C-alpha cells in the first residue's frame, strides 16, 4: 500500500495525519460496503433460516442452522416455476428485439448523416426521460383495444419502451468507438456498406452487443409496473408473482425472501461477470431505476 495518500504526487513518506486519514478512509469504506450489501445478505440469511428462528423477537444476527424449507414452500404452494418461465421469456424476447433494433438505429446515428436524424435523437431522449407511470393508462387502453392485455407480447412491447432508448444509445457509443477507417477500407476493397458492416464492424461489436443485451435483459427482468398491470394470473412475471405472497392474509416472509433471493441471483451473477461493461454502460448511457 505505497500510495495511501489520496494523490501521491508529493513525497512518498507518510505523515501521521495521512496515516490517520487512511485508517478513517478504510473504516468509512467498510461501513459503506456494509450499508450497501447488508439488505441482500439479510435476505439470503432469512431465506435459509428455520421458521422457529425467523419469527422471534428480537431476531438474532446469525442463524444456528440452515434449511431449504422456504424454497420448497415457495415453489410447492405457488406458480413460481411459471413466473420464472414468464420472466425469462419476456426478458429474452425484450433484450433480443431491443438490441437488434437498437443496433440498427445506433449504427445509423453513429455513421450516417440523414434527414430526420436530429428529430430521431429528440424522440430517443424523450422516450428515455418519459416517466413510465404517465404512459401506463394510455398504453393499457391501447393494448386492451387489441385484446393484448394479459399476454406476454404486451409486456414485451411495454418493456421495449424502457429498453430501446438505452440499447440504441449504448450501441451508438460502442459503434462510435470503432474507427470508421476500417469500414472505409472494406468499402474500397469492394464490400457494399452492408458487407462492410457484417464483416468488419459486427465482429468488433461483440462486447458492445453483449453489454446491450445484458442491460436490456436486467431492465426487463426487474420491471414491475407494466408487468403487473399488463399480466394476468398465468402471465405473471416473478416480480409480480412475489407480490401475491404479500397480499395474502399472513405474510410468508421466509418464502418471500427465498423468491427474492432467486430473482436477484441471476442479475448479480450477470453483473459480476460483466462488471467492466456494466460500469461503462452506466457512464455512457445512464440507466433508469
Amino acid at each position, binding site marked *: *500500500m505505497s500510495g*495511501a495518500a*489520496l494523490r501521491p*504526487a*508529493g513525497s512518498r513518506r507518510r505523515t501521521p495525519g495521512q496515516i490517520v486519514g487512511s485508517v478513517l478512509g478504510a473504516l*468509512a*469504506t467498510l461501513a*459503506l460496503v456494509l450499508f*450497501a*450489501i447488508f*439488505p*441482500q445478505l*439479510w435476505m439470503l440469511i*432469512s431465506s435459509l433460516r428455520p421458521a422457529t428462528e425467523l419469527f422471534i423477537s*428480537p*431476531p438474532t444476527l446469525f442463524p444456528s442452522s440452515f434449511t431449504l424449507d422456504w424454497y420448497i414452500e415457495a415453489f410447492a404452494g405457488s406458480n413460481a416455476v411459471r413466473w420464472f418461465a414468464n420472466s425469462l421469456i419476456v426478458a429474452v424476447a425484450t433484450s433480443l428485439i431491443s438490441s437488434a*433494433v437498437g443496433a440498427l*438505429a445506433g*449504427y*445509423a446515428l453513429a*455513421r*450516417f*448523416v*440523414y*434527414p*430526420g436524424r436530429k428529430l*430521431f435523437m429528440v*424522440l430517443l431522449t*424523450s*422516450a428515455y*426521460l*418519459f*416517466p413510465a*407511470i404517465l*404512459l401506463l*393508462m*394510455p*398504453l*393499457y387502453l*391501447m393494448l386492451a383495444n387489441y385484446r393484448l392485455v394479459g399476454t406476454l407480447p404486451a409486456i414485451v*412491447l411495454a418493456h*421495449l*419502451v424502457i429498453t*430501446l432508448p438505452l440499447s440504441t444509445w449504448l450501441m451508438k457509443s460502442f459503434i462510435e468507438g470503432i474507427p470508421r477507417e476500417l469500414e472505409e477500407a472494406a468499402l474500397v476493397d469492394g464490400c457494399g456498406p452492408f458487407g462492410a458492416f457484417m464483416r468488419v464492424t459486427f465482429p468488433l461489436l461483440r462486447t458492445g452487443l453483449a453489454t446491450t443485451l445484458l442491460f436490456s435483459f436486467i431492465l426487463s427482468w426487474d420491471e*414491475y*409496473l407494466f408487468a403487473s*398491470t399488463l399480466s394476468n394470473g398465468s402471465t405473471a412475471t416473478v416480480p409480480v408473482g*412475489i407480490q401475491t405472497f404479500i397480499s395474502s392474509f399472513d405474510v410468508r*416472509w421466509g418464502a*418471500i425472501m427465498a423468491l*427474492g433471493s432467486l*430473482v*436477484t441471483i441471476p*442479475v*448479480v451473477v450477470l*453483473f459480476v461477470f460483466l462488471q467492466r461493461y*456494466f*460500469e461503462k454502460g452506466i*457512464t455512457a448511457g445512464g*440507466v433508469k431505476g
Partner: protein
Amino acid sequence: MLRGRSGLFGRGLSAQERRLGLSFSLPATVVFLVVLAYPIFENFRSGFYDLDLVGKNPAWVGFDNFIEITQDQKLWRSLGNTLTWTIGSLVGQLGLGLAAALLIDRPWPGMRWVRQLLLMPYVVPVIASALVWQWMLDGNYGIISTEFQAWGLLPFGASPLGQESTSLLTVIIINVWRGFPFAMLVYWASLQSIDQAQYEAAMVDGANAVQRFLHITLPNLASVTLSLIAVRGLFTLMYFELIWLTTRGGPAGSSDVMSTYLYRVIMGEFRLGYAAAIAVTVGLFLLAVVVIFQLGRRLAARR
C-alpha cells in the same frame, strides 16, 4: 437537412448513406410511434372525456377534469410529498454518491471488488429490495425495527414504514440506498478525468487537502452534478415502484406522491379521463422544466 432530402433518391455514396440512415432508424421509430407517441396522443384526447374501463360511451366533459385537478386536496398533498421525496432523494444520493466516489478513488488493492459490492443496491431488482427492506423494518420481527424499539425510538411493535410521521423519510432513505451507487459511479468516472497537474500546482502553492477539494475537485464536478440533478431529478419525480412496493403511499397518505396517487386513480378508481388529465398536466410541466433547463444551459454555455 434540406441538402439531404434533395439527394435522397439519387445515386452515389451519400445518397445511399441517407437511405441507409433512414431505413436503419425505421424499426426503432416505428416502435416509439406505436408504443409511445400514439398512446400519448390518445392520452391528450382522453383528458377531455369522462372515461372508465367499462363505459361504452365516454362523455365529452370539456375542461372539467382539468378543473377538478385544481380542487383535488389529495393531489396537492401528494405534490408536497413529491417535492420532499425528490429533493431528499437527490441530496442523499448525490451527497452519499460523492462521498463514496472520493472513498473508492484510492490506489488501494481490491478497490475493484469494493466498487462491485457498492454497486449492489443499484443492481438488485427493485422488488427484492423493497421486500427485504419491508422485512428488516417489520414491526414484530424486523432486525432494524426491533433494534429501534429497544432504544426507545419506536413504539413497541411498530415499523417506521407504518408511522405517519416517519413513512416518507424512511422511503427516502431506502431510495438513497438504492440510487447512490449510480451517482458514485458517475462521480468516480469524472474524478478520473480531472487533470492531475492542477493538484500538483496547488500542492506547490501550499494548498491543503480541504483547499484542494474546494477549489479543484468541486468546480470540476459542477457540470456532471448538473446532469445528475437533471436526469435523476426527472426520473425520481415520477418514480413509482419503490414507494408503491413499500408503503403504497400510506399510512393515511403520508407517503403518497404523484405517481402512487395517479396509479390509484387508474387502477383503483378506474377514473381514466381524470387520470389522463393529470398525466397531461404533469407531462407538460416536466416538458417545461426540460425546456427551461436546456435554455439555461445554452445561455450559460454562451457566456
